[in-house]
């Protein structure tokens, strides 16, 4: 009797010990015990189950939006593409929209800061034009509210393309081969600033990120991304707090935040009264779709690697009154950092199948 009770107690102790080791000790997402003090909830640390409602927030839309004042048509997009690649829309005849929004660089330029006709470095990094159809505020500081409005800004900016809009229209009018393209796109309206800008806007609306592995996973293909990437998606939404601003299928909230970078550029603060403290040093959240893995990063191109970017968010940015309340210092384990990067890589889709136009 005593002996059997001893064995029962021994068995109980063994079960208890195994249970504690398996369930309580900090474990890496791979299931091995680690010495890190970072312990996440079981759902994030052990499993890679992702709630459907969370995935649904990242589902791609079915159609490209366009405004009633300039509905998207293939003819407008074709004209817009021709204009987009035409360097004659710049003062020197040497810089086109595509010079900075180069398809080979994910429709950016891969530079820390853009360069235009004067060769003077621009104050900010060139953003991609991918998925611009969905933007509700354009440019890093949101000074344009429509693609049609935005299209005029680089053409006329002194250090970008440096051409008066009237001069751009006159040049296009003088190129005979443009007339049939304009007639097809805007019958009876001719070459005018409105049609030129409307066509450029229309072409940019067609530049939609191709389906990435992430999209396939969101649509239910569990094999489309790695387990590490799935864990990284949870880090992105939970411990990393990235989704506080990089939300929606485009991984941006189209909103403005001071993320605490050292810079004299006050961004959207230029367009807000000084009393709106929160807009000082605020810049638009960039999309993470098809971002260049090799950088550079941030509105000023000040960071060269993803590691540097994650370090910045771990630190929480420069503390000042305008710092976004969404910016809170975080701590990620080495495993979580690696998982996060694995996830971000799943946002890279194939290049768009855009054929270079023959310029008239």
């Amino acid at each position, binding site marked *: 009797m005593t002996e059997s009770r001893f064995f029962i107690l021994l068995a109980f102790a063994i079960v208890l010990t195994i249970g504690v080791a398996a369930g309580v000790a900090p474990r890496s997402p791979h299931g091995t015990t680690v010495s890190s003090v970072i312990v996440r909830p079981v759902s994030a640390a052990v499993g890679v189950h992702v709630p459907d409602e969370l995935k649904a927030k990242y589902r791609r839309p079915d159609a490209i939006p366009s405004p009633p004042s300039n509905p998207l048509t293939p003819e407008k997009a074709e004209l817009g593409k021709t204009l987009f690649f035409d360097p004659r829309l710049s003062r020197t005849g040497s810089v086109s929209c595509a010079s900075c929004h180069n398809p080979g660089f994910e429709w950016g330029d891969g530079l820390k800061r853009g360069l235009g006709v004067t060769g003077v470095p621009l104050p900010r990094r060139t953003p991609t034009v991918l998925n611009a159809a969905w933007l*509700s*505020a354009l440019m890093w500081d*949101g000074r344009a*509210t429509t693609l049609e409005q935005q299209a005029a800004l680089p053409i006329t900016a002194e250090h970008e393309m440096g051409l008066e809009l009237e001069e751009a229209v006159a040049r296009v009018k003088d190129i005979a081969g443009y007339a049939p393209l304009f007639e097809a796109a805007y019958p009876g309206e001719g070459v005018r600033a409105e049609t030129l800008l409307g066509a450029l806007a229309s072409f940019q609306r067609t530049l939609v990120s191709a389906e990435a592995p992430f999209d396939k996973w969101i649509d239910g293909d569990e094999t489309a991304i790695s387990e590490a990437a799935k864990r990284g998606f949870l880090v992105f939404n939970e411990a990393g707090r990235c989704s*506080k601003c990089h939300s929606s299928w485009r991984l941006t*909230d*189209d*909103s*403005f*935040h001071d993320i605490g970078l050292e810079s004299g550029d006050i961004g*959207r603060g230029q367009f*807000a*009264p000084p*009393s*709106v*403290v*929160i*807009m000082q040093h*605020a810049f638009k959240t960039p999309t993470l779709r098809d971002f260049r893995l090799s950088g550079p990063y941030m509105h000023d191109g000040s960071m060269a690697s993803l590691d540097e970017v994650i370090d910045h968010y771990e630190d929480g940015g420069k503390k000042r009154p305008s710092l*976004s*309340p*969404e910016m809170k210092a975080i701590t990620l384990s080495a495993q979580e950092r690696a998982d996060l990067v694995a996830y971000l890589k799943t946002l890279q889709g194939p290049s768009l199948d855009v054929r270079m136009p023959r310029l008239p």
Partner: protein
Amino acid sequence: MRLPIAAFVMAMVVMALPLSSKASAGEHVVVLHHMELDRIEGEMRVDDVVTFDNRSDMTHNLYITYADGTVDNLDTQTPGMKRTVKLRVAGPAVVRCWIHPIIKSELVVLDREDDAGK
């Protein structure tokens, strides 16, 4: 004799309290959900007070632009925080958020004189 009168007055005050705590005709509450403002219902008039109740999980900074171009800034509003503004100018007005430009709500502020049937 004084005690019953005092008690009666107290009772009246207590009975009136629930009524005065309700929003009167000149008070409105608009709830902020995520990146959306509840539709602004009912007539709004100059001097009415509008309370914006941030029930989203993000910080907002609303401002109202009046027909004359002047702006009232409601300042930063963290989740759970309420901000109020007294409507100053009659005419169409727009409520927007500095942080999230997608938030936009249009309203018409009526003049107080309209109350008198003018």
